[in-house]
């Protein structure tokens, strides 16, 4: 992939905003400049409207980008995502700063990739899956969620992946249990060139341990609370073997082996 374009501010229009599962929405935004510039794994920092109520921007991965639009998959957790869920088509009160961050890297000669998504962790994997498939990489997806209907982006994965194995907490789709048993099985059975991973931190750690064991390189996308999103405020730091890094510019995607998971994770809500 090419060197990322420098970030910019772009006003966005809501084209559609659909509830696709309990507490999960899919927002399609008209954002032509961002749609063209974004690379898989990058995110936008979204201002939710005027006023000082939810004053900070909110970071969201770009799930997909095509033509003049970008897609965002979001889970309603607090004031900001609630405000997002209330947006109607035609709303033009938001703007984005983006595309931001260091996204997924595709090592040369990658032919076989495993994408692992837990819950909304599937969001940043959508565009990646499409790009990999389009460039001839064989994509396998391991996906976990609480219930079948919260296996977001499943159709996208089914469309482009060679294989999609899922696990749900309640057994309503795929294996009953965590995606980590799926990944354990897949990593035992197949040799992947690279693993792309995003989900709750506890799940990320478990999968990273499996990757280490199988000596498969792994990239992981991390979430941190972010104020500026552009590298200036140091609110999003990640402890790594080479010191403190900023999730917003040095990440959100990191080499899994670099990351020192200290006790600094965001209290998991989802």
């Amino acid at each position, binding site marked *: 992939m090419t060197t990322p374009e420098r970030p910019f501010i772009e006003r966005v229009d809501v084209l559609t905003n659909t509830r696709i599962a309990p507490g999960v929405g899919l927002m399609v935004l008209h954002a032509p400049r961002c749609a063209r510039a974004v690379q898989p794994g990058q995110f936008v920092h979204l201002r939710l409207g005027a006023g*000082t109520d939810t004053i900070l921007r909110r970071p969201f991965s770009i799930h997909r980008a095509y033509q003049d639009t970008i897609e965002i998959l979001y889970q309603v957790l607090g004031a900001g995502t609630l405000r997002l869920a209330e947006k109607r088509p035609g709303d033009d009160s938001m703007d984005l700063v983006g595309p931001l961050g260091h996204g997924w890297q595709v090592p040369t000669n990658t032919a076989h990739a495993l994408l692992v998504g837990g819950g909304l962790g599937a969001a940043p994997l959508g565009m990646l899956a499409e790009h990999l498939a389009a460039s001839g990489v064989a994509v396998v997806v391991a996906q976990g969620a609480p219930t079948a209907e919260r296996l977001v982006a499943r159709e996208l994965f089914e469309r482009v992946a060679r294989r999609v194995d899922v696990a749900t907490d309640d057994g309503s789709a795929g294996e009953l249990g965590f995606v980590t048993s799926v990944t354990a099985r897949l990593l035992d059975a197949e040799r992947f060139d690279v693993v792309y991973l995003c989900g709750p931190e506890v799940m990320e750690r478990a999968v990273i341990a499996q990757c280490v064991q199988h000596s498969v390189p792994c990239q992981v996308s991390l979430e941190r609370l972010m104020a500026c999103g552009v590298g200036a405020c*140091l609110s999003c730091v990640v402890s790594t073997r080479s010191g403190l890094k900023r999730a917003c510019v040095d990440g959100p995607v990191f080499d899994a082996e670099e990351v020192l998971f200290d006790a600094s994770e*965001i*209290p998991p809500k989802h």
Partner: protein
Amino acid sequence: MSVDLRVALGSLDLANPVMTASGTFASGREFSDFIDLNRLGAIVTKGVSARPWPGNASPRIAETASGMLNSIGLQNPGVDAFVATDLTWLAQHAPCVPVIVNVSGHSVAEYVEVIERLESASGVVGYELNISCPNVDTGGMAFGTSCAAAGNVVRACRPATQRPLIVKLSPNVTDIAEIARAVQAEGADAVSLINTLLGMAVDARTRRPKLSRVVGGLSGPAIKPVALRMVWQVAAAVSIPVVGMGGIMTAEDAIEFLIAGATAVAVGTGNFVDPTTTIRVLDGIEEWCRSSGVASVRELIGSLEVGA
């Protein structure tokens, strides 16, 4: 009508009164994608200490009503790395903007050490002594909450430089005017205020503080009324210029600070909300002056009309 935007912080002439608030703008590089840094009145850098500081554990921020808490804790790579990277970058990419370095120390000696190291660096026009950081255990705010301690820091730093010394005051005090007078008496060239108000956020569900350090500094529009009041009090108490900040998001906010007595203003949290806030504020001040028939922004400074 062309508007004269120039202001002076003591011997330091600024092309306009819009500065950046320390810690919210790094050294400007991250914002160069969005604005022309050379248009700023001055860049105030993040806090710089003699040796690298790791800052505090995460989470380091929490959103609050019309504001945010931070407990970054002055994470910085130390003055040598700062000179090598930040100052070098600024000299190349923003040669026209005055750079004021925000100086931190665990001890009085560390403030002096940082200044001494920076004296030989070109491209630094002055220092802001941060005696008001609520996010470090030793030093920081402890220096800013008593006249004696605040005076000590300035007394020690004053002989180390001819460059202007701006002292950044803490709002977490009973009488900020008294502290301002104390640092003026020790030779400060200006004061800047306010640093953040000490605050806290609690997650009811987990019964844990939202910041790993428990307490942090409150900034943003929520604190603007407190900041305006303190700027007004301090401007009345000292004869040196005041740099006003706290919740500035718009030109109107900035003008309120000028009217209350600030000679210049700084944008902090506003940079996170909109990375072009500084320039929006600058353009807005100019436009406001033009449409209000104000020929020089200096006419606004301290022009508050009190009484009937």
